[in-house]
């Protein structure tokens, strides 16, 4: 068993990526509970989402069990994730660019998943890579179609986004250097990917590389050309960079929607929320305005004599 530096760094990339995502997730999930700030329509409101209604439309709402629908929430979630509904509805010209970009990324992720699945089946299922069985036929076409479409539309989308961001004055003046850098980073990685694809038109090297990763070096690594090596290195750097950049907005988006805009959970007596609130009001205020008693707790500041 022998592992190349590239393979070792591939494992390292995955570990750093996962740790990075966990750190990001922890950062947001460990923040204190905030005041309610929901915005309607809220999709888990059963039977009311279509007009934006809420349980607050009922008299004595606290006496009844809230009717919520997970399916409603998931429908809205997927409409936004898979179709970027709001951009489609409110800024169609941008949607024609951002939709292929994001869909292309999903396809590339599916492509990775197919490579991974294939490696597990081939290596652990002892399937000969050259045999003509149905799985090999399926994976051949699936990887080819998904990978080809994925890389092409993501590349076109990235170029489109760069052009749009630079040519549209309302976007250009708001865009900072790092935001161009992010798009250029993706573009360079994709371009090296396209060149690598030229040398590996049916992704057989990619498949073998993944099997060698899965086998921890027991499966021999194919001969990799310089372009492929450069591409893999860039891809690794990109994966490492994602959790620490704005590209991790897929995590942020979960919190903005589920934990802010759709968080309409009422604070009922003796609930977890009430317990958390009781802890938070003991924090000491650092503000300096004359109407606030600095270094006194929230509770001391809002109850009784605060004149």
């Amino acid at each position, binding site marked *: 068993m022998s592992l190349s530096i590239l393979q070792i760094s591939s494992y390292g990339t995955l570990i750093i990526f996962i740790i990075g995502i966990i750190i990001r997730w922890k950062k947001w999930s460990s923040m204190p509970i905030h005041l309610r700030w929901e*915005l309607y329509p809220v999709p888990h409101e059963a039977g009311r989402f279509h007009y*934006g*209604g809420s349980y607050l*439309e009922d008299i004595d709402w606290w006496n009844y069990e809230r009717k919520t629908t997970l399916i409603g929430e998931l429908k809205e979630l997927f409409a936004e994730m898979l179709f970027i509904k709001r951009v489609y509805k409110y800024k169609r010209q941008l949607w024609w660019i951002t939709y292929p970009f994001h869909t292309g990324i999903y396809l590339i992720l599916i492509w990775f998943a197919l490579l991974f699945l294939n490696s597990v089946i081939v290596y652990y299922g002892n399937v000969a890579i050259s045999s003509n069985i149905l799985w090999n036929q399926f994976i051949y076409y699936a990887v080819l179609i998904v990978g080809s479409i994925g890389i092409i539309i993501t590349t076109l989308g990235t170029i489109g986004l760069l052009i749009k961001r630079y040519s549209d004055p309302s976007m250009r003046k708001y865009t900072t250097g790092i935001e161009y850098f992010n798009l250029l980073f993706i573009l360079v990685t994709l371009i090296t990917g396209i060149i690598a694809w030229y040398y590996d038109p049916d992704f057989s090297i990619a498949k073998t590389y993944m099997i060698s990763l899965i086998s921890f070096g027991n499966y021999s690594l194919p001969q990799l050309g310089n372009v492929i090596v450069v591409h893999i290195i860039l891809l690794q750097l990109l994966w490492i960079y994602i959790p620490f950049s704005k590209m991790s907005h897929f995590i942020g988006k979960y919190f903005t*929607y589920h934990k802010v805009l759709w968080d309409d959970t009422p*604070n009922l007596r003796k609930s977890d929320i009430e317990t958390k609130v009781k802890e938070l009001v003991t924090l*000491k205020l650092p503000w300096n305005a004359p109407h606030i008693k600095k270094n006194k707790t929230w509770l001391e500041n809002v109850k009784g004599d605060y004149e």
Partner: protein
Amino acid sequence: MISKNKKYDIKIEDISKPITQMINLSLKDLMPLPPPYDKPDMEPECTEPKTEWREKYITELDGYIAIDIPWKPKTKEEEKILIEKFLNGLRNLLSQEGNWTFLQPLLLSLDYCAKCQTCSEACPIYISSGKKEIYRPTYRAEVLRRIYKRYLTPSGKILGKFVSGEIKLNANTIIRLAELSYRCTLCRRCTQTCPIGIDNGLITHELRKLFSSEMGIAPKPLHELGSVQQLKIGSSTGMSPEAFKDIIRFIEDELIPEKYGKRIKIPIDEKGADILLIHNAGEFLSWPENPAAFAILFEEAGISWTLSSDLVGYDAVNYGVWYDDVQLARVAIKHAEIARKLDVKKIVIGECGHAHKALTVIADRVLHDELNIPRESCLPILWDIVRRRKVNLDPNKNNFPVTLHDPCNIVRLMGIVQPQRNVLKEICPYFREMEPNGVYNYCCGGGSGFAIMQSMNFPEWRSKIASRMKFKQILLAFQKEILSNKPKYVCAPCSNCKGTFRDMLNYYKATERYNIHYGGLADLIVNAMVDLKKPFIEF
């Protein structure tokens, strides 16, 4: 003035430049209004601020003044102190201790905006102004984001403008940013369109908090004459408990007998009632018919209720919800303490949008233990009265065109959409919706405190820019009958919206010219009561 050069495209960093005024509003640039306001001379031109205002107040943004306290730094030393205070405030805003109340939503919105500008077209102020860059929902958010990145993050400190973008923190930036935080009504329509869920309305809210909680800077009508006065005297209107009781006597002795034909005893401080009803105290002074209508309906429906004459207990307003969490919590706690003292089963909020949101939703995670008293809107109760025929109604008494304004706080921010519509469909044969409506409505232009901010030239900006989209909606809703003499009624179940409509209709002379009126929902229900000898609503 940058805007005099028509080709000049305002950039984020221009906020720090030493120029007299960033933009200059002109009637010809504004969003056109529909007929009959499409003709010349139907509205006055935008005015310039007076010279003496320029010296004392902040006119460096657009020439209009929202913050009516003098706080402009005069020397370099004062500028330095201002910058230090601002940065300290920003640190507090980003701390758990200072801002657990909104820390997570704020940081999410600062970190993840893609600057795609999908939200711009949703903003009535940006569109009404003729798309002035400084009013774009992302403009003030981006200024704050750049300051935060540049001055408070390690990456910004090391990599500078590559990470933060171009920005300079000086007195101009701070004073303009403060004014700019009062050019958004916090309607949050922009947030509805954001694919990532970024909330530019929230960023505006947080900016206001920074200025208030750290530097004591807020418009007088919100702070000094608003929440401070309410906590001290009992009401932001300046109404004392005695004055409140006098008004109630007037409603009992004169207003109700005259309108209703019989006397009603309005319960005050009745312990053990089911409901503590809290109105916006502005109703008692400006529209006493509305609390009178509630008294009539609750009496007819046999509801057990009371008003409170306790300090703060007769005024539902809670201006803190727009600019300062501590003030918000102080007023909310007073409301809850009074309800506890009266031993009522629940608090019901009258027709006041921000009071609805403040006490029912926002303060929900402030009130705990015995102060966590059930609170709800009056609108489902009004619908229940109509639906169950607890009063005898004849819809033909409302034989005039009616449209409904959806107060942002009650509808978009609380999801109370149908009860008020159900009432109108039942009692107003000539009811028609505005477009768009419901949770996608446009703000009246008076949201976030603008309705009560009457200093210097701010009312002109409010009527001309902030209310322009709503005025357009009203004209379109009544377009078919606009030239007829028939009275037209904009139903606005919110005190601040009503105040805004009063000023808007007056500014555009729409009542005088086209007989357009405004009023509450309870008033319309009472107007339809069979037993009333003469109309409750008089045009």
